[in-house]
């Protein structure tokens, strides 16, 4: 039995989950990472993706759209801007998210015509959003 670690998933509106888990798969901005007990203290931003927790009570999956994760000695806190249990995500939700990202890309294209940075970021956001669609089986 692996060591467990305290895991909290909070959105601005409420505390979504708080449990003891053995591992958390976090969709970090620089790539996915799996955090287990005694992980080095880390702060990372999130990209849209799937957050998977594994614990004694089984695994649970959430779709997160952005925010950041803090891994410290006390536990793992994920502060997500929007987080929905995977089973509750509907096709309409996903389409709305993709549409939002598409609009952000359009805005970035017009606002930063000569700067590739923000446009690339927005394009990546859109790609991530679309990729989320592969995870949810509707």
């Amino acid at each position: 039995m692996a060591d467990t670690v305290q895991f909290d998933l909070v959105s601005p509106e409420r505390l979504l989950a708080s449990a003891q888990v053995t591992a958390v798969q976090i969709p970090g901005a620089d790539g996915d990472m799996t955090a287990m007990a005694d992980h080095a203290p880390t702060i990372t931003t999130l990209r849209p993706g799937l957050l998977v927790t594994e614990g004694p009570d089984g695994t649970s999956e959430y779709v997160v759209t952005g925010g950041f994760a803090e891994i410290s000695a006390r536990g793992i806190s994920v502060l997500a801007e929007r987080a929905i249990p995977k089973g509750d995500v509907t096709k309409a939700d996903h389409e709305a998210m993709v549409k939002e990202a598409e609009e952000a890309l359009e805005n970035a294209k017009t606002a930063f015509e000569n700067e590739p940075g923000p446009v690339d970021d927005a394009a990546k956001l859109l790609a991530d959003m679309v990729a989320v669609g592969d995870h949810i089986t509707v």
Partner: protein
Amino acid sequence: MPSLKDLKNRIESVKSTRKITKAMQMVAAAKLRRAQEAAEQSRPYTERFNAVMAGLAASVGGSDSAPKLLSGTGSDQVQLLIVMTSERGLCGGFNTNIAKLARAHAQRLQGDGKEVKILTVGKKGRDQLKRDFGDLFVGHVDLTEVKRVGYADAQGIAKDVLGRFDTGEFDVATIFYSKFVNVVSQIPTAQQIIPASFEEQEGDEASTLFDYEPDEEAILADLLPRGVATQIFSALLENGASEQGARMSAMDNATRNAGEMIDNLTIEFNRSRQAVITNELIEIISGAEAL
């Protein structure tokens, strides 16, 4: 001396007013509970967010490359006041207190020769500030249609504010809202959100050395705009709870006053009825005596 009929009508009308204020009080009480719950549930996010931001700000804040949202534009000439009030009245001094604080602040800034711009959230505050500062308004956010304040509303406001900041419309932004203490006391509060200020928390938390992924500055650049939204969101929630608390105590007072008024009017009604009866008797008796 009002007639009996008039008195009766007045008693009836005060009674129905009392019914209305009583109902409003109970509705406010129910809404207050919901608003308080919402405020409570957002607290873990805000607390953790601020703790992380404080740590980050402390490590990056000193450098020249710190984002403008944190270090400021280097000037404080143009000040944006974001005044948050309610959409509805009948809540005692709630809106007046916030407007008063904002007005004093604006006048002081103007006295110092600064340029003041005002963004209002909620139409009650807008109405109150219109006469003195109507020409300083740069925008208004209407939440009339919003039944329950969500994070998306805060994000909308934050987006508007950040857009203005990016185009250099202002240097410093301060939000005005009412902090909820309990049902009878709400404290109007001014809080600076741009440039961001985070309170350092003492303790072992701050001394932990974190790995940052991507680097600290990229995270900070990503999180600062979210920080603005978070602060606006928690201010909106506090304000929501304060508004209901203020309305509840205002309506409680109104109900009690109506009760007193009914008692007084009833006494007056009984007296005048008695006077009428006595008068009639005197007339009859003196008529009989004259015969």
